[in-house]
């Protein structure tokens, strides 16, 4: 199992922090409300433990995933609890669970995810492009496992950079995972010089 030093994890966390800062600005502009970010977590976990660290695998969740293509392939996954999805849709004036609700969440995912990916690319000096978003409302485990299978599949560990965007005064948040392909972590660390 690959191990990262505390310094390396701090650097990855800082990367997530700046990325989600940019993403929160994008979300704030979209919702017309102030958006805070939580202190991000960096998890490097054996794949078996990765899903459980995020939440109850059977809980309901809506996931919006964007692929990253370019020098560092990976995925960005935004996760909404049913309550968060409802509040988020409410803020955009559409009904959660409806076709409009899903496309509103995908649009949030698109704007927030793409700004995160662009910020990340600029920080590490790589050409990164987001792919169009895809959404699913289902069991949290099924959503997260499918993204991990696609990305971290070849390795034994999953790197998850997790942060929350919290909409001020609405008690509504979206959590955010960056899942790079296996070699991507080393590439990022190399660019960061740690």
């Amino acid at each position, binding site marked *: 199992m690959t191990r990262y030093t505390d310094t390396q994890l701090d650097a990855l966390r800082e990367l997530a922090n700046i990325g989600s800062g940019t993403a929160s600005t994008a979300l704030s502009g979209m919702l017309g409300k102030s958006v805070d970010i939580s202190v991000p977590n960096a998890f490097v976990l054996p*794949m*078996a*433990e*990765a*899903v*459980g660290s995020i939440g109850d*695998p*059977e809980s*309901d969740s809506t*996931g919006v*995933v964007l*692929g990253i293509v370019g020098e560092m392939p990976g995925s960005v996954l935004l996760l909404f609890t049913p309550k968060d999805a409802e509040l988020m849709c409410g803020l955009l004036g559409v009904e959660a669970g409806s076709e409009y609700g899903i496309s509103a969440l995908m649009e949030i995912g698109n704007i927030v995810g793409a700004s995160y990916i662009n910020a990340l690319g600029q920080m590490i000096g790589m050409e990164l492009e987001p792919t*169009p*978003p*895809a*959404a*699913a*409302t*289902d*069991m*949290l*485990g*099924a*959503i*997260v*496992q*499918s*993204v*991990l*299978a*696609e990305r971290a*599949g*070849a390795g*034994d560990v999953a790197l998850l950079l997790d942060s929350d965007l919290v909409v001020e005064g609405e008690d509504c948040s979206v959590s955010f995972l960056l899942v790079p392909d296996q070699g991507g972590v080393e590439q990022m660390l190399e660019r960061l010089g740690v």
Partner: protein
Amino acid sequence: MAETMVRMGELATSAVAGDVLVSLGLGSCIGLALLDRRLGVAGLAHVVLPSSGGNAPLGSWKFADYAVPELVDRVVKLGARRPMLEAVLVGGASMFAVSKSSLEVGQRNEAAVRELLREQHINVIAKETGGSRGRTIRVYVGSNKVTVKEAGGTEKPLIAGASVVAA
């Protein structure tokens, strides 16, 4: 009675009546149950990817080509008779309708597991695979019940006791 969680890339077996083997929220992954129903021996593998490409370290049970033969060996070691083994498959969905590659992973997982079972001459007696829904599989050791549950749904039997419900 003990519920054993079989997480991504893990395997579990039991011959203790009352034990339950569970994989929660399978998406593109496959939950593969093997049973010797007469003797009440069962195993469950949580397969993540179809093939190791031949160069993964030993113990990489997330790959179908490692997990399937290993699960067969383990249930046989627990007393199951190889010719009596039967399989139940759950999962292999494509969670994200637009994402072509995740669709491929689910389908390729199922195809790989089926091919490996065919090589071992093990029949698939029930399955709930494909589509775009996540699923939980539970294997009840001893009573030989295998159930599947989708998000927001109820647990429904795929095989119940000795009688085959769906194939």
